[in-house]
């Protein structure tokens, strides 16, 4: 899948920007705060209906304006024109595919798979368990609509059950009512699906991590991701283990009125040669591991969805040495279409630039083509 062009209107610093892209690598250069990252953000919007940076759509409207618009042309076997329009007055966002309005985000997610590598990725390996869950969930959700639906179902169950626990606490009913039994059963059913899917995913994903790691690091170290939550003798045991854990924590759950067991409280372990990255990894190892994870995500999605994702890389070379950067850039040429921001222009000299690659200069929201 290729994004052949975008048009931005009143999108942050881009009042009126129209760009035709290369189907290979698009190098986006320019100083800090000129609107490079904004270009990536707009592409992310087109693929997911959401910003990867802003919490609210209103945050990205150009100063003193009432609305913004992003248009993009995706070329696959068929062409898809996608348009996002946001009106500040209505505080409402409209999403159109080929001039037909799309009402549910779930109909868009996974249609235009996208992989984004940013400096914020440090949280995946160095942050909290919830950062890791967010990463894993987003990868599986892009590949599996069923997983996304199960996840929404589980999260809803969590909210309902915690509300019920609060009510029971208020009423000083510190025992399982039939109602709580029903919500607990639902929690186990929905949660077990999540746990099983995450276990299957981690097994599968290790192959992709190893491949990318070997290309980028040129070493035979073995990287991996492990997920040991509710490990038992077999996958059919998970429901039982989950139920058992819940009955052990029964009193504490009732007292604290909160869901204490389940895949909303688990964690993933990244490792190199069986050494836990979080404990033993150097700063450089963390950084390369984050890059490796995004490449692994790219190839995983490509295989699972039969679609070539769009690869967005924000300022990836800043913290890497020349050797690693040049490895990554030649690896990128195998990927398909990629968009990569560079602050330091001298970087370009050691990157493996190909004939069809494109260089764009961004300055104060204006974009010009380079050679």
């Amino acid at each position: 899948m290729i994004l052949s062009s975008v048009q931005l209107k009143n999108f942050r610093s881009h009042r009126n920007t129209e760009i035709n892209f290369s189907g290979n690598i698009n190098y986006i250069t320019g100083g800090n705060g000129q609107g490079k990252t904004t270009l990536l953000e707009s592409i992310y919007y087109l693929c997911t209906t959401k910003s990867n940076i802003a919490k609210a759509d209103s945050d990205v409207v150009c100063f003193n304006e009432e609305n913004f618009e992003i248009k993009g042309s995706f070329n696959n076997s068929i062409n898809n024109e996608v348009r996002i329009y946001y009106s500040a007055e209505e505080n409402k966002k409209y999403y159109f595919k080929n001039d037909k309005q799309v009402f549910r985000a779930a109909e868009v997610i996974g249609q235009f798979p996208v992989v984004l590598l940013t400096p914020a990725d440090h949280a995946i390996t160095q942050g909290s368990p919830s950062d890791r869950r967010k990463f894993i969930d987003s990868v599986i959700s892009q590949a599996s609509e069923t997983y996304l639906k199960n996840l929404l179902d589980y999260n809803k169950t969590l909210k309902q059950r915690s509300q019920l626990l609060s009510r029971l606490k208020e009423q000083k009913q510190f025992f399982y009512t039939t109602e709580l039994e029903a919500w607990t059963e639902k929690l186990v059913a929905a949660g077990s699906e999540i746990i099983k899917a995450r276990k299957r995913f981690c097994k599968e994903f290790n192959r992709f991590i190893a491949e990318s790691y070997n290309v980028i690091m040129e070493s035979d170290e073995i990287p991996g991701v492990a997920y040991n939550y509710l490990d038992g003798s077999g996958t059919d045991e998970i429901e039982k283990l989950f139920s058992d854990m819940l009955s052990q924590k029964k009193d504490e759950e009732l007292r604290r009125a909160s869901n204490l067991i389940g895949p909303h409280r688990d964690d993933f372990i990244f490792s190199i040669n069986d050494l836990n990255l979080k404990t033993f990894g150097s700063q450089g190892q963390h950084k390369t591991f984050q890059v490796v994870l995004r490449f692994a995500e790219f190839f995983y999605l490509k295989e699972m969805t039969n679609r070539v994702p769009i690869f967005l890389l924000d300022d990836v070379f800043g913290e890497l040495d020349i050797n690693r950067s040049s490895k990554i850039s030649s690896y990128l040429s195998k990927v398909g279409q990629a968009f990569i921001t560079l602050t330091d222009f001298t970087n370009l000299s050691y990157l493996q630039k190909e004939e069809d690659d494109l260089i764009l200069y961004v300055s104060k929201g204006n974009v010009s083509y380079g050679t």
Partner: protein
Amino acid sequence: MQIPETLQNAVDELSKLPGIGKKTAFRLALNILKSDDDKVKSLVLALEGLKSKLHLCKNCFNLSEDDECDICRSNKRDKSIICVVEEVSDVIAIEKTNEYSGTYHVLGGVLNPLMGVTPESLKINELMVRLNNITIKEVILALNPDTEGETTALYLAKRIKEMDIKVTRIARGLPIGGDLEFADEATVGRAVLGRIVI
């Protein structure tokens, strides 16, 4: 121009209906204004009749013009099978399929702690009374396959289990997260036939 108060009132009332915005309400109000007196009168009568003539069946809580609904009174319906649904609209959806000849029980919603819906606020105790009073062979749970619908089905299965009555749930032919009333008839019909024991 100032909109006359009478027109504004009509627009306000109409736009309280689900799925009707201000614009549509305005169009409807103007349309009614242009219609013949007879037509307007029969519209008003039809609307009033909804509240004055229709009640909930004392047995199954389906809509009825009498104490008991047509389905409960019919001797062609199998009284030993009860199909439990969320809303009256679900009864209508299943009736359209002509695949079902048992009776119904309308819960009036599903369990939803966040919205304050408890087992007591639904017609669940009334269902238990029905199960106790007459011989029931089977209870079919035809609730929407969403988070709350599925949990309500689990809850009911637990309550009924003690009574030694077969409990089935309609098969998942329905779109996940979709409402029963919006599914096409063939899908609903298949789902009722393909029910499974839970």
